[in-house]
């Protein structure tokens, strides 16, 4: 059995279907990019993986066990916004990844000193040690997202879920964040699901790119049917195996730079 397996998920809100017949299996260590039009259930799917909400039908298994009904430490999340705690300094945001799981929600004494030392190491690695004592509101969008990712990783989740994590960043910062994320992945080898609107980003970072879309469409009632996974691309090596069939001249271009545009 694969590491994450999604079996025949249906999800509706107020009897309005959002997702229909979604099946997916992912291996441990895989990076799955999720793309699709707005309102087609990408973020809903991510919330289901996070166990923030329960599907109307179907089930999700991680490592063979069904989800328990609420988020936990095994799956980390980074949202587009509001991912870090505004009332904690940058360092304490990382410390919180250890402290929040304690009974009082914080660490004390020697444990705290050790956690702070580890947090300083983490901040050094992600280039935020110079702002360790500042509050997140003083940070730029890219720095905040770097902090959010580092915070999620500090809890050592087996699966990292990213909900348009770079959507609010400018193109230059986004490039830096891609490098940052790829380095982290090479280190940790964790399983990643990332929702994005940016197709080049999806192919650049992902091992697979899955596309959510509606297979049935009622022009008189656009909300009548839900979306499902319509394409599942192998995006390794910049999506080259897929590209070959569609577009022979892709071999002449830089293999690091994907030019695919599905759908």
């Amino acid at each position, binding site marked *: 059995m694969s590491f994450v397996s999604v079996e025949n998920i249906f999800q509706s809100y107020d009897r309005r279907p959002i997702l229909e017949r979604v099946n997916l299996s992912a291996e441990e260590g895989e990076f799955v990019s999720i793309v699709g039009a707005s309102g087609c259930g990408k973020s809903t799917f991510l919330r289901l993986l996070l166990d923030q909400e329960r599907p109307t039908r179907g089930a999700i298994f991680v490592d063979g066990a069904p989800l328990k009904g609420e*988020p936990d*430490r095994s799956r980390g*999340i980074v*949202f587009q916004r509001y991912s870090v*705690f505004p009332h904690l300094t940058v360092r304490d945001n990382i410390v919180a990844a250890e402290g929040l799981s304690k009974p009082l929600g914080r660490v004390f004494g020697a444990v705290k000193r050790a956690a702070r030392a580890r947090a300083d190491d983490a901040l050094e690695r992600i280039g935020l040690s110079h702002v360790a004592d500042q509050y997140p509101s003083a940070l730029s969008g890219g720095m905040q997202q770097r902090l959010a990712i580092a915070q999620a990783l500090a809890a050592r989740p087996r699966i990292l879920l990213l909900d348009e994590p770079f959507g609010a960043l400018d193109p230059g910062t986004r490039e830096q964040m891609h490098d940052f994320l790829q380095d982290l992945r090479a280190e940790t080898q964790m399983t990643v699901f990332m929702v994005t609107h940016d197709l080049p980003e999806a192919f650049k970072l992902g091992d697979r790119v899955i596309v959510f879309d509606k297979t049935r469409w009622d022009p008189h009632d656009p909300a009548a049917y839900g979306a499902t996974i319509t394409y599942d691309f192998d995006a390794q090596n910049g999506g080259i195996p897929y590209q070959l069939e569609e577009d022979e001249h892709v071999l002449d271009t830089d293999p690091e730079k994907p030019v695919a545009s599905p759908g």
Partner: protein
Amino acid sequence: MRWINREPSAVARFALAATPFALVALAYAAGSAARLAENPQDRILPAPSTLVETAIRLLTEPDRRSGEILFWGDTVSSLSLLFAGVGIAALIGLCFGLAIGLIPVVRSTFKGFVAVISMIPPLAVLPILFITLGVGDTAKVALIAIGITPFLIRDLSARTMELPQEQIVKAQTLGASSFAIVVSVALPQIMPRLISVVRLSLGPAWLFLIAAEAVASDSGLGYRIFLVRRFLAMDVIRNYVAWITFLAFMFDWALSRLSRWLYPWAETRA
């Protein structure tokens, strides 16, 4: 240039801010002088010099019967009631606000109840409090607490619910229990809001305090004002009102400074 874009200079800002105060003082002095010119015995608008003399007398002359300076006794008596009432209300408001805002079971249980309770006019309950708790301090503290607690609960629970859901979810993915989320995620972020909502409720708190003291008391700022009213002692009343205003203003200012000092992150977020 549009009026919305005209920024007064530092000097002009100070002058503008002082103008309304100066105008009121001038109008009072003029009105007082006019009335006193017509009738030197007039007690409605005592001269500014009389007000100052009364202030000095209030601050220095001990009461002939008890030998104590009543002004300070009244202040201590009123403030201890005010602090007790507001403190109790803040504690209850914080606990219920957080619980209603974060825990669906508590929300379902108490949200409707609080919405109804908050519509009871507190002053209408005052006779009930005097009858059940006696005319002592307990009833007055209870009136202040009953008067402002529902407002605090409703505001703080609304603020708690406004915390981004992303943060609550994030805390869960970091392994936080419900209790850890309450004390380490919600509580610190609600504290600045508690301070600002206590600032807003200080006005009603004074109102309830003075009303209770006016009805039944033997000391306190409100009691004194309503006592000397019988002798038309406008000079004493004006001094007491000015003192209450000054105290209220200082609390408001101190709380806002406290909030900025304790929670610097809350200022920059807006």
